[in-house]
């Protein structure tokens, strides 16, 4: 299992994932060899799966982001499977989440501008299978995005 040293390493690592390992060792208060060994062990156990660069879509010309909250027709036994399979075919869908609650599935959809979004919405989203209700939240700003765990 993980101990306090592992958690301390991860706490500093997730706060600055691009830091050099010597700096990370310093901040976590361990030697470089301890750091390397601990990280290797956490990788081997699948606790630390890797690191992803987060794409800044507006810089690539996708300035609109909409969160679509979907309720599915649950009388259809394959509603979830069919819907998710079809949503994967839409390149502008960058996130698919399923929920327990009022909302069944949420899609994050990006578009170049509102006209593009409207087109996507009509031709690719409303045509997805088994939708019984749908509402949209339009992103205005991201105020916190680090997704760190309170370790």
């Amino acid at each position, binding site marked *: 299992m993980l101990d306090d040293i592992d958690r301390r390493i*991860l706490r500093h690592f997730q706060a600055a*994932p691009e830091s050099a390992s010597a700096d990370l060792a310093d901040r976590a208060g361990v030697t470089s060899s301890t750091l390397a060994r601990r990280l290797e062990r956490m990788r081997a156990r699948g606790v630390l799966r*890797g690191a992803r660069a987060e794409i800044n879509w507006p810089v*690539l010309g996708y300035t609109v982001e909409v969160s679509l909250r979907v309720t599915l027709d649950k009388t259809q036994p394959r509603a979830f499977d069919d819907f998710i399979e079809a949503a994967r075919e839409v390149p502008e869908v960058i996130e698919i989440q399923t929920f327990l609650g009022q909302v069944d599935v949420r899609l994050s959809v990006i578009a170049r501008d509102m006209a593009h979004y409207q087109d996507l919405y009509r031709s690719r989203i409303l045509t997805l299978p088994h939708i019984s209700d749908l509402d949209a939240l339009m992103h205005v700003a991201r105020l916190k995005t680090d997704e760190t765990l309170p370790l």
Partner: protein
Amino acid sequence: MMDMDEIDRGLIRALAQDAQASAGALGRQFGLSQPAAWRRIKRLREAGVFRGVRLDLDKAALGFSVTVFLGVKLATKGRVSLEDFERAVAAVPEVQTVEHVLGMYDYRLRVVARDIPDFERVLRRRLMTLPGVGSVDANVLLSEERRPGPLG
């Protein structure tokens, strides 16, 4: 908007999967020399193509088995300061993301907790007490999948 070709788009996709991939390995994958790959990556980074790097951790193995999305509506708009709410909510350690949205809610929060009782504690003690909070709607995350996006 910056000028990009197929190789740039491929590099962005590859780094989105593995931010730690070396310029040498990426170069081999896309038929570039190591220095050429490095120069392209540097140019993409400098253009701001990446918001940052995020560790991919097994949350459940670290003791966080519950992720909840909260839709928050502020109570008395105009009388509460959005800045006060934003500053206070961003300071809650269990709150992973805060998004200002237009629609049924004013804010969308991603919250992690150890289990449902722990989530209830965070909700009652730290979130319902934030300045200006009106109604809160919660959905527990069951599964999540990030897609590569429209990069050809």
